[in-house]
């Protein structure tokens, strides 16, 4: 049994944590087979080889990073290990024994636990109820709560079993998922991009928990594309690119973030070059004063008193953990949702609070939302049609007016489309191709190009490089900086702190719909931003005692 194993090893490994997998194996059982071996796994989706004879070895007590860009095949691999997908060929061994994993239930029975990137919790139910749902029927309520409490305490995962999920922060929800996975006492724990939704402080807490778990002899498979944290906590790394293993790193601590990135991307990524921001700040081109909007649905976030100026020539970034009002703020700025009165949002001095998105475009603004397919683009329509989508109403340079007397000039649209594809290096694109045929990075380059081509004075972009490969991301960041230095006001909403520090002149933080004042990037560090992400600047009263924070304070 795994528990007995773990108990037996506890003392030995705790004394010398992270001596490395080799040392540990040598210590306990010289010939013990590795915890998990994946051999030559191949899985094809249509024309795409998502996994091309991938092999990986996870040892006891090891935190093993699975690295790769979006689309490299990480998710496919872990879904195969967790029994969600079946491989076309290849085999999986657990402790030297070949196994067939046909479903997540079988995976759990074999001692594999998984924490998904997107949580699967029922919001109206309590923590204990959510966990009970994942267990066999008939588990006694009191006993369950006791087990939750024990696990919470052992692994530093403070949780109130009676708290309602809807009241919990994202970090706390993740704890629920982890506790739920740990209840079945897994030997192997898989975490899919666990820190993408956490503040730096929460992430550190998670790392401590993971180290405790590893010290008990469990193997942890850790998916991430954040290289710094991989260097910080992982004992080994497997790097995937285009579905193949391109490198196995024995000790990530000896690598640099740049060398890991090179392995992931296969080429050097050029760093953003930015001239210093203008000494004399330009006039504010985007001016937001006291923007307050109620939540637009049961899972929406209300905006409260958001004020912000973005001046000509600068990049202002809004940091924050996902789901804290970024989407709502973007929609309010773009005009997809109107403000509730006059005088709230100004673009180049014009009050556009009650103007729709096309009037704001005519005022000189351009917008790039977070979601490429279905929001920024119509997936089934051609790239040319997608050019028309955001440009049909804008009053362009006269020779490029796309709509006259209600009719669209498709030839002009095609010309613009071809120009965007050429100038912005959109690979694999043609004006007639549907948007969904492009890869994420190239589609994002196209969307950015579509808006940049209009030479906007105000540019608002939400998660500009989300799910974009590192090469394209660098290009996109450079474009944003260049646009600002050319005299535009650029507002970037992003969850990626590396990105923010790379391009922002000033940084504000959004948490639960409130925005902190924007401060020069040079005055801020990760620590300070982390505190703001956790709500240090929030003004509304009665927020701190709604049960959410009580749970944190308890143990």
């Amino acid at each position, binding site marked *: 049994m795994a528990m007995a194993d773990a108990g037996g090893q506890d003392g030995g490994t705790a004394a010398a944590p992270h001596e490395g997998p080799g040392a540990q194996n040598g210590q306990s059982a010289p010939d013990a087979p590795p915890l998990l071996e994946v051999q030559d796994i191949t899985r094809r989706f*249509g024309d795409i080889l998502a996994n091309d004879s991938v092999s990986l070895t996870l040892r006891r007590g090891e935190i093993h990073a699975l690295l790769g860009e979006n689309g490299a095949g990480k998710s496919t691999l872990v879904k195969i290990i967790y029994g969600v997908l*079946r491989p076309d060929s290849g085999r999986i061994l657990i402790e030297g024994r070949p196994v067939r994993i046909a479903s997540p239930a079988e995976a759990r029975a074999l001692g594999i636990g998984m924490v998904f990137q997107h949580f699967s919790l029922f919001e109206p139910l309590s923590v204990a109820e959510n966990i009970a749902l994942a267990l066999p029927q008939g588990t006694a309520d009191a006993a369950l709560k006791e087990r939750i409490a024990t696990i919470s305490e052992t692994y530093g995962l403070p949780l109130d079993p009676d708290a309602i999920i809807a009241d919990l922060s994202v970090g706390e929800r993740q704890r629920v998922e982890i506790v739920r996975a740990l209840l079945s006492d897994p030997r192997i724990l898989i975490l899919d991009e666990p820190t993408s939704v956490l503040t730096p402080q929460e992430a550190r807490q998670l790392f401590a928990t993971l180290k405790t778990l590893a010290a008990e002899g469990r193997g942890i498979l850790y998916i991430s594309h954040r290289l710094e944290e991989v260097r910080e906590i992982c004992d080994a790394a497997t790097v995937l690119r285009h579905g193949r293993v391109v490198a196995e790193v024995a000790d990530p601590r000896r690598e640099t973030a740049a060398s890991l990135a090179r392995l992931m991307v296969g080429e050097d990524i050029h760093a953003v070059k930015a001239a210093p921001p203008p000494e004399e700040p330009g006039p504010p081109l985007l001016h937001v004063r006291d923007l307050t909007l109620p939540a637009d649905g049961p899972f929406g976030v209300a905006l409260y008193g958001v004020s912000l100026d973005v001046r000509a020539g600068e990049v202002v970034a809004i940091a924050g953990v996902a789901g804290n009002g970024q989407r709502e703020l973007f929609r309010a700025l773009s005009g997809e949702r109107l403000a509730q009165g006059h005088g709230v949002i100004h673009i180049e001095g014009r009050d556009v609070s009650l103007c729709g998105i096309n009037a704001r475009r005519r005022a000189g603004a351009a917008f790039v939302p977070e979601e490429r397919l279905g929001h920024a683009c*119509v*997936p089934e329509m051609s790239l040319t049609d997608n050019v028309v*989508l955001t440009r*049909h109403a804008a009053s362009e340079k006269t020779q490029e007016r796309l709509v006259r007397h*209600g009719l*669209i000039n498709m030839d002009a649209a095609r010309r613009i489309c071809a120009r965007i594809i050429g100038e912005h290096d959109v690979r694999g694109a043609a004006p007639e191709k549907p948007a969904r045929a492009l890869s994420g990075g190239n589609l994002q380059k196209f969307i950015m190009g579509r808006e940049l081509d209009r030479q906007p004075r105000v540019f608002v972009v939400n998660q500009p490089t989300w799910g974009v490969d590192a090469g394209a991301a660098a290009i996109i960041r450079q474009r944003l900086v260049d646009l600002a230095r050319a005299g535009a006001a650029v507002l970037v909403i992003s969850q990626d702190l590396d990105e923010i520090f790379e391009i922002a002149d000033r940084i504000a933080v959004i948490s639960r719909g409130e925005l902190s004042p924007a401060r020069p990037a040079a005055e801020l560090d990760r620590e300070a931003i982390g505190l703001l992400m956790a709500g240090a600047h929030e003004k509304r009263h009665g927020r701190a005692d709604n049960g959410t924070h009580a749970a944190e304070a308890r143990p």
Partner: protein
Amino acid sequence: MIVLEKRAEPSRLWAFLAPVVAIAAAGLTGAVLFALLGRDPLLAMWTYFIEPLTSAWSLEELAVKATPLALIGAGLALAYRANVWNIGAEGQLVMGAIAGSAIPILLPEWNDPLALFVMLALGLAGGAAWAAIPAFLKVRFNVNEILSSLMLVYVAQLFLDWLVRGPWRDPMGFNFPKSVSFTDWHVLPAISGRVHLGALLALLAVAGLWLLLRRARMGFALKVMGSAPRAGLFGGFSMAQACWISFLISGALAGLAGICEVSGSIGQLQPSISPGYGFTAIIVAFLGRLSPVGALFAALLLALTYLGGEAAQLALGLSAKVTQAFQGMLLFFVLAADVLVHYRLRLQRREAKS
């Protein structure tokens, strides 16, 4: 094991082939059906699909029946493109017919060419007004338009029934539930034999909608809202607008079909003025791949099923329900074959048990 696999891009080849495959499959199933009914399937298929095309009279009749189907089908294609599910074209047809017939019934003395224009305009307006009800309910209260538009069909039909049995009954008509016969000024002029001016209007409508969907910003907005509503909002289009435009246009064309039917083919108002054109036009829209031009061709085919059904009834003694069975199978196979546009079939050997 057969697996459906999503294509990277929708197949252009299958976009054209799917209706052909569907028609072939429906024909084949029909032949089996005839054989089971004890008829010679080849003779039955000949009677049903070929014979109506061999005489001038039946070709004209084909055009007459295709006229309302094309008018309504093209309008529905537009609405369905916008993801607006107008199922009540039959009711809009009836209301258009009633509105247009107000002139010959209430003002039989108004005898000049303008009267006919006003009749057609009233037909458009009547259909659009009836379609405006589900549009309003949808936009204002988010009422499911499929249900509301469908239920309004029966309201319209009962209203017509009441009119021709009550206030609009011809006083000289021996108590038959029929209105007065329209005078020549109120009848659509014939183009050839029974084919009336409505056929030309149908062609114009198809051309107009084709242009609207292909070139106009309004058509673009409808396509975008139908395909990706959030992208549509990002493009500055509105859901409510798409709903209104779709219902008003498809309703107006159904109303036009109604008044053309009454004024061009029947010549008076009676309790039943359509053999379900408004419902058959749903099949027309889908068989025509939700394109107005496609709907024109599909209308001809569906008109043939009406003619063939009559022929089969006369020559082979088959039930008139055969027509509906054919139309149903056609819709079924069209929707089924559409899967092949976005997916491909792949044969996969079962994994060997280890």
